[in-house]
């Protein structure tokens, strides 16, 4: 049963990643693109955790944590660059 639930989760997150990528491409404004990138990084965290579940190993945890941190930092940096024209003033 866990296997089918894992397949379902993989399919859902893959479709969600594709939809976020579509929004990243067609996004009418910069804010939508930043939002799509943020969503993609969060989806990537979920995907890596699912991969760790499927593989039954704890190695993927650090990768998920690092991607979560880098996603937040990149979102804030991008938003600040759009807002202020500079990241660290």
């Amino acid at each position, binding site marked *: *049963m866990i296997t089918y*639930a894992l397949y379902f989760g993989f399919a859902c997150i893959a479709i*969600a990643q594709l939809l976020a990528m579509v929004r990243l491409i067609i996004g009418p404004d910069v*804010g*939508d693109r930043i939002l799509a990138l*943020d*969503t993609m990084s*969060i989806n990537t965290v979920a995907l890596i955790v699912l991969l760790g*579940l499927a593989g039954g190993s704890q190695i993927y945890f650090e990768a998920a944590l690092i991607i979560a941190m880098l996603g937040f930092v990149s979102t804030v940096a991008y938003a600040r660059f759009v807002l202020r024209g500079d990241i660290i003033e």
Partner: protein
Amino acid sequence: MTYSLGDIAISLALVIGGAFVLVGSIGLIKLRNPMSRLHAPTKAGTLGVGSILIASVIYSFAYGEGSLHELLIMIFLFVTAPVSAHFIAKVHIHRDQTEQKLPKPPADTDWATKHTHARDNGQVGGQIGDQIGTDADTLS
């Protein structure tokens, strides 16, 4: 074929998490307003990822020694999601509020000086008001 309680809990958390992540991204595609698009993935995404991490925690307790590492990611995401959403909302406001969309300043008919001028000459107050109005129009 029977399933243990842990299997059912893991599967339920996985299905709920996947459904939430999918709904968040569908909202990111389907909604029309930029602020509505901001609403969809920030909440559904964190809830979906949180559910999947809970599934991972239950899996580690059911099939291993058990670990609470995943709660670190969950706490981090729950703390940083409002911050990033706030920044993205600020970007939306910054890009969307153009000069033409701002509301016009109200007409200046209630000035305290108008009545004193109006007592001397009925036309002066109106002229001052018109002048201020045109100044505000050229400034905006």
